[in-house]
């Protein structure tokens, strides 16, 4: 039993990272109907920006909560900027073309970030400094949790609440929802659709950056291709929850993280990468629009 609870704790931690990345996928999809394949690579960039910020602040010599927070914010700011640049330079010009050419553009951006990363950061893994000293905390019943895991949970929860607040309670959030329903109608209501789309990319990229830094705290080896698999799985998580649906992305991410950790723990680590997709296919066969997606009637 205690082993199961331990796996559950690890699964939820891992799942909340997937959820953070999945949120970016789902928001961009909700607004543009675009699978932003470069999103996993923005997550990778987040980890690297965090690394540079930590080096610049000397955070590894003097680990403190403040410097950790600064590293996180710096990575988020950097990736927010990257998100804006990607959207303006690559996606905006193809917005009116077919969805497939937009998708190929996204793939091109993804390849560009990966190979640009190899070129600039070098192909070998870099070591992310310990900006927070690792400690194990006993939860009782044989279950332990590291302070880094707690940090992951707290930060992702805080970010999700912040996102929910932005989307549901602010003017810009209202505009985002309007744009996701109908671009033309939103534009007629005086919403600057372009700005809202850029804003969405920025928010999504910042969430991915946060995920990148949080993961790097726990698994300190980072490399330019580290975003491919988590990116793919976070996308699957978004689809699982019903793509375009924000709570769905969170639930999908958690389901995915827990399932993965359980498979590693109880079946075989070899099937770690397959479970995500098996789960996906099974769920989609039962609920073709994901767990929380609405089946939209086709207009003829």
């Amino acid at each position, binding site marked *: 039993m205690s082993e199961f609870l331990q796996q559950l704790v690890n699964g939820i931690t891992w799942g909340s990272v997937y959820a953070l990345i999945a949120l970016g996928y789902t928001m961009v999809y909700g607004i543009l109907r675009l699978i932003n394949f470069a999103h996993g690579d923005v997550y990778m960039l987040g980890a690297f920006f965090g690394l540079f910020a930590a080096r610049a602040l000397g955070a590894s010599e003097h680990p403190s909560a403040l410097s950790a927070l600064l590293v996180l914010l710096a990575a988020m700011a950097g990736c927010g900027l990257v998100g804006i640049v990607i959207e303006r330079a690559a996606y905006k*010009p193809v917005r009116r073309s*077919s969805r497939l*050419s937009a998708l190929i553009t996204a793939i091109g951006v993804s390849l560009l970030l990966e190979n640009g990363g190899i*070129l600039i950061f070098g192909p070998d893994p870099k070591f992310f400094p310990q900006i927070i000293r690792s400690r194990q905390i006993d939860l009782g019943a044989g279950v332990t949790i590291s302070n880094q895991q707690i940090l992951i949970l707290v930060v992702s929860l805080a970010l999700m609440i912040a996102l929910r607040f932005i989307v549901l309670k602010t003017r810009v959030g209202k505009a985002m929802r309007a744009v996701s329903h109908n671009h033309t109608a939103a534009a007629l209501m005086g919403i600057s659709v372009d700005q809202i789309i850029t804003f969405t990319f920025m928010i999504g990229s910042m969430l991915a950056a946060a995920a990148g830094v949080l993961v790097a705290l726990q698994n300190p080896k980072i490399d330019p291709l580290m975003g491919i698999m988590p990116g793919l799985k976070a996308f699957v998580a978004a*689809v699982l929850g019903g793509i375009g649906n924000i709570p769905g992305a969170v639930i999908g991410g958690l389901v995915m993280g827990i399932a993965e950790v359980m498979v590693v723990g109880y079946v075989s680590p070899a099937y770690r990468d397959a479970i*995500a997709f*098996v789960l996906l296919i099974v769920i989609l066969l039962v609920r073709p629009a994901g767990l929380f997606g609405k089946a939209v009637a086709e207009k003829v």
Partner: protein
Amino acid sequence: MRRLLGPLVTVLALVALNIVLPRVTNPYYFQILMLVGINIVLAVSLNLVNGFTGQFSIGHAGFMAVGAYASAMFTLKLGAPLVASWHGVPPPVAEGLALLMALVAGGLLAAGAGWLVGLPSLRLRGDYLAIVTLGFGEIIRVLILNIDAIGAARGLPGIPQYATFFWVYGAVAAVIVLARHLATSTHGRALFAIRDDEVAAESLGVDTTRYKVLAFVLGAFFAGVAGGLFAHFLSYLNPSSFTFIKSIEVIAMVVLGGMGSISGSVIAAIVLTLLPEMLRSVKELRMVIYSLMLIVLMITRPQGLLGTRELSWSGLTRLFRRGAAAKGAA
């Protein structure tokens, strides 16, 4: 008689090139030539699904992997002993027949997988279907990684090198001819109708489910054949050759060439196979330039190089005549 002339000339030309080419080109160029051929088969086969039918599949590498491993195992277990037991049959013929059998076996198994993947298209549309095909491709790769009998992560070495120029470009000719004939047939029209408007197609009496599954089965069959050729050319297989990136490469060929354009797929397959090779001199920058070109091409020509049009001799001569006329007028 005229009907037979085309195929006859093609076969004779392939046989002649098969004998001449390996002797006059250097091994590096020859290898690229063969990979171009295999990529053409892949691109045209994916075009049947993505371009003709409008069903977005991003798991093509999975079908290729099924075909590659199935045909390689077929040859290793059955084909090679068979070739050894055929006395008096000239080796190129015996090996060719063994390869043909292996390719058909690999293709059929891949087609079976295509049928399995095509079935959910009963319920799933658009991006959801796409993600299922992606999932399928990944599951296949993880399965291969974990089946010890086919080499798992070590890869599968020692596959006899049966795939000669004749067979690779024979497959290229076959898939192009099939796609051409399909495009002008009733079945092809049904596929186009589904791509353009599924609801309208259905209301006109097109059995959309059957045709969507058919497209998947056909596309998967030729992807399997391409995989088999790949296996019998490189004589070594590794699961890492069939990742998501490979599927993406093939999609890039189809979209770059123009959805539904066969000649477009062929040209794009050639360009996208040669491009990384030509950029080899700039080493680290190679993939950066490749991805930048992909983005720029999509921004400047979102419909692909040829759009939905086909390149044909009459079209080319018309173009030249128009050019000449314009020059004459000037």
